[in-house]
């Protein structure tokens, strides 16, 4: 049972609005550290260069340049970070897209817009009940 305050979560979305909304949710849940990235490239750079681990990536699917699926693939393909938990944010419940994300090893999905409860539920589905 992970302690919420010891978790580091990376939120990746090209919209500041969504990143800020997620942060409000994370704060309410009591997540210890929230890091933001605007796109897949910035996210991967953070994952690879940080000294302390990031436990969970919540990434938008549709972003300019590299989309969420590319980010997921890149994470899964890179040894040191390949085990990072990954939740895909999607704007529409597109089953086919979620299916292909599952093929690439996504741990769950979250449909925008989300409530704090939904956010917590998905995080717990991946990491276990938060305390």
């Amino acid at each position, binding site marked *: *049972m*992970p*302690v919420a*305050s*010891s*978790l580091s979560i990376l939120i990746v979305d*090209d*919209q*500041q*609005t*969504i990143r*800020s*909304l997620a942060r*409000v949710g994370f704060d309410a849940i009591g997540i*210890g550290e929230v890091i933001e990235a605007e*796109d*897949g*490239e910035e996210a*991967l*750079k953070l994952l*690879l*260069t940080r*000294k302390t*681990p990031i*436990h*969970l990536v919540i990434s938008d699917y*549709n972003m*300019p*340049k*590299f*989309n969420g*699926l*590319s*980010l997921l*693939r*890149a994470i*899964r*393909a890179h*040894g040191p970070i*390949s*085990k990072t*938990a990954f939740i895909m944010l999607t*704007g*529409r*419940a597109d*089953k*086919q897209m*979620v*299916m*292909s994300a*599952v*093929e*690439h090893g*996504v*741990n769950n999905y979250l449909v925008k*817009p989300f409530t704090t409860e939904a956010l917590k539920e998905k995080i717990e*589905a*991946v*990491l*276990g009940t938060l305390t």
Partner: protein
Amino acid sequence: MDPMAEIRETFFQECEEQLGELETGLMRMESGQTDSETVNAVFRAVHSIKGGAGAFGLEDLVHFAHVFETVLDLIRAGRLEPSPEAMRVMLRASDALADLVRAARDGSTTDPVRIASIVSELRQLTGEPDAGDAEDDDFADIAFAAVPVTIETEAALPPGWIVRFKPLADLYAKANEAGLLLRELGRLGPMRVTVDAESLPDLAALDPEGAYLTWTIVLDADCTEDMIRAVFEFVEDDCEIQIERNLPADVAVAASSSAVAADAGQPSDDEILALLRNAAASVEAPAVIEPEIVVAPPPPPPAVSPPPEPEPASASAEAPAARNDAAQGVGATIRVDLDRVDRLIDLVGELVINEAMLSQRVFEAGLARASAVMTALDELEQLTREIQDSVMAIRAQPVRSVFQRMPRLVREVATMTGKQVRLLTDGETTEVDKTVIERIVDPLTHMIRNAIDHGLESTEARLAAGKPAEGLVKLTALHRSGRIVIEVEDDGAGINRERVRAKAVEKGLVSPDAPLTDEEIDNLIFMPGFSTASEISDISGRGVGMDVVRRSVQALGGRISIASRPGKGSTFTLSLPLTLAVLDGMVVSVDGHTLIVPLSAIVETLQPRSEQVHTLGVDVRVLAMRGGYIPLVDVGAALGYRAMPAEPEKSVALLVEGEGGVRAVLVVDGIQGQRQVVIKSLEANYRAVPGIAAATVMGDGRVALILDVDAIVSVTRSDNLRVDASRVEPILMSAS
């Protein structure tokens, strides 16, 4: 501000950006660029608006964006052709989406009938009468257990830290006490403290103010590293601090070895890009084109994904392009409250004034001959100027945001007038002050309406004149001699000078026998009370004439003029200052007062000879110049500094040009020089004074008034400027 309100504001800001992207992308698609990147950018814009709108419960917006998005999704998947008909519907949909966004922001309402009709048109495109793309939220059959999550090792780490704390002499010198800090640390949890006094020298060698002790604290607290750092926050520069996790031996080894691995593999930007590109290449190709294939065979194990996929040709061709895009896109930006920028600009304005004052004091003190002082002053001046330019650049924005609104306007006006119009824009990246941008929207909107409504002929008339049926309106922005110039050009019939003149005579604006040049006739349309439309149409009318356009442009320190070629079209030219905060001015003396005349208005300076000056009637004087007569204005008399006009031949004359090319000669006592001045609003600090545009503070600390050349020039035509400006300066001085 409440955080949700703040996020909501961010959302609407981002919506504006996305609406811009949407418009740009759709225009690109309309011109035949239907590559997947463009289509996806358009899709993403609508998709993002929908996503954010949902979070704020903006149901109308979500619903509309959803239908729109469905159409775009079909195009993206290649299942719907972006035909001209489809493009027309989508352009209308983007206009409607913009209306819905603004209605949501301002709490206003949109026309539900119009929205509903666009929704049904969009649905016709998808071929599904109902919201066919019902969201399938039943993922119960999908198992999300693909990758085990190794959060446990991290969470299972025994809580506890080892802190090594070595105060430096400065820590004690600043009256901090190690014992108090340790007590503070003890509040985080139980701790064991050991002191290391190894480096304590013999008493003889001991510096009483030195620091020799090091403490090692084993802290048995379940806290974050940041919480420990916070204890030492105020002394962090004056001590050495090491914080590490108190790990059992085996975990410590594992952790350190993985740390080494991570360090060795510290990737460069290129490697990160390569990783992503490989992932993108192997993901996107099948996912977009043949979705079935992705689901059917098991995916290759991620770890062994071969870097170069088949299709080496296309991959290598695209790689540099993607690289470039990435490099350009990375430019980091921050959002800053405009008030903060304006505060900075104000302060820099003060700095410019202070620099000028300092330089004047140095001269007065007779230090000017000391070359080292002069060099330093020159450098200061240079630096001040650069700071000023840089600060101004913060407020500068490309005119794109204004230009982006125009295609929609053109579509609307074209539909209302039944004309075919094509809009060309050029120079969208030209930058200008944010305030200027905001305030040219209305004049520009009006000019474009005017160009289509009055400038362009009807389709039949165009065909009869041997022109293409589609009329052309060109919008151009460029920088020219420190100003921004915006041109609105049409290829219509040009100004009907006969009609304009007849109208002006009928309205009593000019006398029937006035000798007017073509240029003067063209500029009559800017006169108050003039409107060529025989009835005020809803399009260019809205009860506003070109005189209002001119007035709003003038209020920005701008000029507007028209050049017309009969049968070929007209060009309206707007010239505006790049910033509203500084001005290049000529410093002149009038009856002991110092005034600033904007340099942009001055055509030339001259020394009048007595035979050039002629008196007409009682008190109107003109100056004979190059075969013509130009009215003389005595600035001192016009501003009420003196009752009797000065003798022109003992004065200096400035030939100035006001709006519409109206010229006058201003008579002043002398010229002090030229300088850049910081504009201080008179309205904000005192009140509006006719004949005076603003004020500034000079190097000697005195207030100088900036002349409103247009108002002064208008004195030559009417006698409405009767003001006593002599009282303004003392009031401003005492107020400042």
